């Protein structure tokens, strides 16, 4: 098969599954029964094809001295705006997109398999798989985009499939509210993205990634000079463009302060959370910054500093909140946010080219490893929820005996995310910390603290679920679930151990040239021991049921409840939207329209009516008064003629 066919089939197969199941899934009983199998088979082929494409790209392609080059497989003008500006539909294959292809199709496949058991017996089973197909298609389209407007198109499609999947249980008001919230918050962020695109596209005179990068990194090009000369509020056009684009990325990646939708998004089915809100869609922001990274790094360090700042802030902020949550999916959601913060600030502290670009590789390495262990955590949580029928860790405890496979795989994932060698997370997190260390000490120490917190809250979760005493003794009625649920856990568990050994920066680096990094054992001692300390603290507090956590919470008092209420950010948003926007803008607008603008027309109508009813009194029907008018007019005319005209 030619490369183009392969690359078209990778997103094409999930799209086909979506169309097939979405249109006929509910009417055709055969399709309804076999929806899961069909979608999974399509996904499996797509996954194999993308692995093949990635291998082709990384191994078969000869590594020239310029490193891995970006290949445009095809490009088709979709909507032309004249004078070179157009939205193209194309496929761009470079190291990061090849890597992401594998991640997305693989995690999606795992989720498809897991859902066979988890979603069994749902009434809208086919619809569920249709939406999964739509999401996978859009995500793959986003990854392959060669044009910044193309990425925006798929960006929106990803957003809507997330909306549909979160709102899958549409009869539940909380799910509908969460779906709305996710869509609207990311839509708000996308507003920034869109304006950023318009700015970059206008000055860059192109929407094409490669053209934009080439023009904006060449400090002599007319486009660069134009965008640097343009300034608004003391900030150059380029910084505005990049920061606005980053705003879109921050919204999708749940960075502070646009993160509020992510915890609520856990209302969706758990496998969906594993796919969308852990491994794939939420890292789209990181991917976007990585895509434009040369412009950030070479031409606009200030915007990159913003990325670093938002990244570390979100990482720390989310980690603190995660320590207090009791809904296991929300803990995982905040942990996702925190880990994406790691990826963001790793990009932020990085530079372009060679050793200086280590942060770039580290960030994407973490994206890669995180996808495996975080989806494992979510799928594990799904298995647990499937058994316990509750999201709350208070209802769990002592589950290690009933769910051995889930237990072991969950433990592996926890160790991986905590950065304990030799699990995958260790390698990527060390790389990030190393990059931060060489660039900015403040970020480095904050990151160290955050990674200790990570170990603490993950093991708080772990011990609360699997150790402690059993909260409800009778929940082992239907075992650990089917093999379709266990198999993905095992595969992901194995991968969470081994993927760390991939020499990632050899393949993915800021300038495409291969970068050899070495593990500095002396450097690793501090982070690893801090992580171990976090684990031990969690074990001390939560392994057995005791009063200590309660006491600590009481001693912290107000601070604890502040954190537990997520710093009241949601309430602030609610206040702004409901009280300010609805009451101060929406209602007055509706009122003005009804009473003032429309009132004007009503007034016109009333005036006309009043006027006519006044003059209609003259039309009395009384013969004698008519005669009087007649006579008076004649006399008036006579006087007029006599005195005015003669």
């Amino acid at each position, binding site marked *: 098969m030619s490369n183009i066919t392969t690359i078209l089939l990778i997103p094409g197969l999930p799209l086909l599954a979506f169309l097939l199941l979405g249109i006929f899934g509910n009417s055709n009983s055969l399709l309804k029964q076999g929806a899961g199998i069909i979608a999974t088979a399509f996904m499996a082929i797509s996954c194999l094809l993308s692995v093949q494409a990635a291998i082709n790209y990384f191994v078969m392609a000869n590594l020239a001295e310029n490193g891995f080059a970006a290949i445009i497989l095809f490009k088709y003008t979709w909507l032309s705006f004249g004078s070179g500006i157009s939205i193209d539909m194309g496929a761009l294959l470079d190291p990061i997109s090849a890597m992401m292809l594998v991640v997305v199709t693989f995690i999606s496949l795992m989720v498809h398999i897991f859902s066979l058991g988890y979603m069994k017996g749902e009434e809208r089973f086919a619809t569920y798989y249709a939406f999964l197909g739509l999401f996978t298609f859009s995500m793959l389209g986003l990854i392959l985009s060669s044009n910044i407007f193309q990425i925006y198109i798929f960006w929106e499609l990803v957003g809507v499939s997330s909306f549909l999947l979160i709102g899958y249980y549409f009869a539940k008001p909380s799910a509908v509210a969460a779906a709305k919230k996710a869509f609207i918050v990311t839509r708000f962020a996308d507003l920034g993205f869109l304006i950023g695109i318009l700015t970059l596209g206008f000055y860059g005179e192109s929407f094409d990634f490669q053209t934009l990068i080439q023009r904006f990194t060449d400090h002599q090009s007319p486009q660069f000079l134009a965008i640097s000369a343009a300034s608004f509020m003391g900030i150059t056009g380029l910084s505005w463009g990049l920061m606005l684009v980053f705003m879109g990325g921050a919204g999708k990646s749940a960075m502070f302060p646009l993160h509020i939708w992510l915890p609520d998004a856990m209302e969706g089915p758990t496998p969906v959370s594993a796919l969308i809100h852990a491994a794939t869609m939420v890292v789209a922001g990181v991917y976007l910054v990585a895509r434009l990274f040369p412009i950030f790094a070479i031409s606009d360090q200030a915007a990159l500093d913003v990325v670093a700042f938002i990244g570390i802030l979100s990482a720390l902020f989310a980690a603190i909140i995660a320590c207090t949550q009791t809904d296991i999916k929300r803990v995982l959601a905040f942990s996702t946010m925190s880990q994406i913060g790691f990826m963001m600030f790793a990009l932020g502290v990085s530079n372009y080219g060679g050793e200086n670009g280590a942060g770039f590789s580290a960030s994407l390495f973490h994206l890669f490893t995180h996808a495996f262990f975080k989806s494992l955590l979510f799928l594990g949580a799904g298995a647990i929820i499937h058994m316990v029928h509750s999201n709350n860790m208070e209802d769990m405890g002592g589950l290690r005996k009933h769910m051995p496979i889930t237990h072991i795989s969950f433990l592996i994932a926890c160790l991986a995310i905590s950065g304990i060698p030799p699990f995958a997370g260790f390698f990527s997190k060390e790389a990030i910390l190393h990059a931060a260390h060489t660039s900015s000490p403040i970020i480095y120490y904050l990151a160290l603290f955050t990674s200790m917190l990570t170990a603490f809250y993950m093991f708080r979760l772990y011990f609360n679920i699997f150790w402690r005493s059993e909260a409800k003794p009778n929940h082992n009625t239907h075992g650990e679930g089917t093999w379709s649920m266990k198999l993905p856990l095992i595969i992901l568990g194995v991968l969470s151990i081994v993927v760390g050994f991939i020499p990632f920066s050899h393949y993915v680096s800021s300038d495409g040239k291969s970068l050899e990094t070495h593990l500095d054992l002396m450097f690793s001692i501090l982070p690893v021991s801090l992580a171990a300390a976090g684990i031990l603290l969690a074990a001390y507090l939560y392994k057995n049921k005791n009063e200590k956590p309660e006491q600590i919470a009481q001693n912290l008092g107000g601070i604890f409840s502040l954190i537990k209420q997520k710093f009241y950010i949601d309430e602030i948003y609610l206040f702004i939207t409901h009280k300010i926007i609805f009451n101060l803008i929406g209602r007055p607008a509706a009122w003005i329209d009804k009473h003032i603008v429309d009132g004007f027309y009503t007034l016109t109508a009333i005036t006309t009516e009043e006027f006519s009813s006044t003059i209609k009194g003259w*039309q009395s029907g009384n013969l004698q008064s008519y005669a009087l008018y007649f006579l008076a007019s004649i006399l008036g005319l006579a006087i007029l003629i006599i005195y005015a005209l003669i």
Partner: protein
Amino acid sequence: MMPIGLTHILLLSTGLFFIGTYGFFTRRNLITILMSVELMLNSVNINFVAFNKYLYPQNVDGIFFSIFIITIAAAEAAVAIAIIINLYRSHNSIDVEEANEMKY
């Protein structure tokens, strides 16, 4: 004693005309209104005859017109009285104020 001139006759006809007008405006009874109209017509007749006699004695146009008017007035009175009788049948009154169904 001064001879009776055109002015005197015109004064008479003007007086007659305005008496008719006054009756037309103020009376409510349709018969009286009709009589007032007749007065006005006759004042005009006087004018015609007077002008004819004093200004163009060689012509008969004025007399011709006054005969014409008398004829029309007779026809008009017939029609008017027919209307009034009909009105009386339907309203039991010939008060002009009460016939206001077509108002507005």
